[in-house]
């Protein structure tokens, strides 16, 4: 087996809100082509972790390396975050898909997908249209290109949001509970699209509560609780032969809930 290059590396990332420490030293490595899933109890800061990776929230200590660039690090005992311009370039290469979709409500589906191609990638309009249509086609939403978000179902909105991220041709996409806000019958459609993208080689970092989704899609699972990664490994290990008591309890409780 060839060793894939790391796309994203976190070392001892720390973040607190006031006196409440949310991230207490998170270490994480995402390899090229990997589908990495973060699971764990609710309210523990999994979403905060994702939002610190693209600096929607500012981490307070630790280092984040993305495609061999330091986005934040300790330098001579100072904690430094890269300049805003560099952060923006990095964000464009790791777009995020949100639980609440967050489509631009004043724009059509096609305009939503084109927006960052025009403003961030500064593509010519004709070229942006071609790339946006291609991305919409990959998530089977081309037929809705002229619809507005309010005319779409939750599942369709999320597929457009995925297309909006895909169109940037990013090395990695961050998914923050992508199916948590969907009606049950729409969940599997969105999940199978994400699974297909992974099969096509896209690197993804996903936070989710859907254990079946994790087991069907993940290459690697990180169990996150109490501010750090407790255990990580292939899904078989996490779900069948966990090495820590914390994970064993969690797996037991979630499987008890499903049966």
């Amino acid at each position: 087996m060839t060793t894939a290059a790391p796309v994203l590396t976190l070392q001892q990332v720390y973040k607190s809100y006031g006196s409440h420490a949310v991230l207490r030293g998170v270490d994480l490595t995402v390899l090229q082509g990997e589908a990495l899933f973060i699971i764990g109890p609710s309210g523990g800061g999994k979403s905060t972790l994702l939002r610190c990776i693209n600096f929607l929230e500012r981490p307070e200590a630790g280092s984040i390396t993305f495609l061999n660039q330091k986005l934040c690090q300790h330098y001579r005992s100072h904690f430094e975050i890269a300049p805003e311009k560099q952060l923006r370039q990095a964000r464009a290469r790791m777009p995020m898909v949100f639980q609440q979709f967050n489509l631009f409500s004043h724009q059509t589906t096609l305009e939503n997908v084109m927006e960052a191609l025009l403003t961030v990638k500064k593509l010519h309009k004709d070229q942006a249209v071609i790339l946006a249509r291609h991305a919409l086609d990959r998530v089977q939403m081309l037929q809705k290109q002229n619809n507005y978000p309010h005319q779409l179902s939750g599942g369709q909105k999320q597929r457009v949001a995925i297309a909006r991220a895909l169109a940037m041709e990013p090395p990695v996409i961050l998914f923050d509970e992508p199916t948590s806000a969907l009606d049950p019958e729409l969940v599997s459609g969105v999940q199978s699209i994400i699974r297909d993208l992974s099969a096509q080689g896209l690197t993804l970092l996903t936070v989710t509560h859907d254990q079946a989704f994790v087991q069907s899609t993940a290459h690697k699972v990180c169990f996150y609780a109490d501010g750090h990664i407790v255990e990580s490994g292939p899904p078989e290990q996490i779900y069948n032969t966990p090495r820590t008591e914390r994970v064993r309890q969690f797996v037991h409780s979630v499987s008890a809930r499903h049966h």
Partner: protein
Amino acid sequence: MSVFWSEVHEYLPFLLSGAEVTLQLSFISMAGGMILGFLTATGRLSGSRLIRWPLEAYVEIWRDTPLIVQLLLIYFSLPELGIILPAFWAGALGLTLNLSAYLSEVYRAAIQAVDEGQKSAAISLGMSPLQIYRRLIIPQAFVASLPTQGGYFIALLKDCSLVSFISVNELLRHATIVISNTFDSMNTYLMVALIYFIMSFTSARCVSWLERKLTPSRHTKGGVANVMPEAVEGITP
């Protein structure tokens, strides 16, 4: 039959020429008020304390003094400082400054009401704050505030009657002249009221139409009523 109706072919065009001045004043003041109001709102939301504080004072001063006093000051008292404006432009300036204070609060509320999730999405795609402001926040805030802006336009149209006090030859002042010739205040004022009604009603319909055109989804019923300035008082900090 009253003198007004027997000479209506003479007096109606005279009143309508006054209405034309009213419309000119309204459009100029609205455009000025929108631009100045937008700049004020932007400054208050983005600037340092050094920018914010004077703007807050500006908004409060214009909102907390009567429009008629503002107009009288601009027309009769500014000349003492060497600033002499023709009546029409003194009126336009007063209305613009007054309206900008109110509109800046409308815009500020609309800008702050733009969905945080959509802002996060824009940030996470790598867009810059300026791009997000220009491409996401302004378009959404403008459309969201359209009904309120429409209400202010109608209020403005009617507030224009106040500039008759500083001798601008608009609709109400022309009416006063007609009455001094005909001594028929009843018919003249009724005609004036009808002309104001037609102008306001037409404006309201136009704003509703614009609103529907810009928001393909929401079919707002009823359109803009006479939303008076007080409607947004609640958002003052």
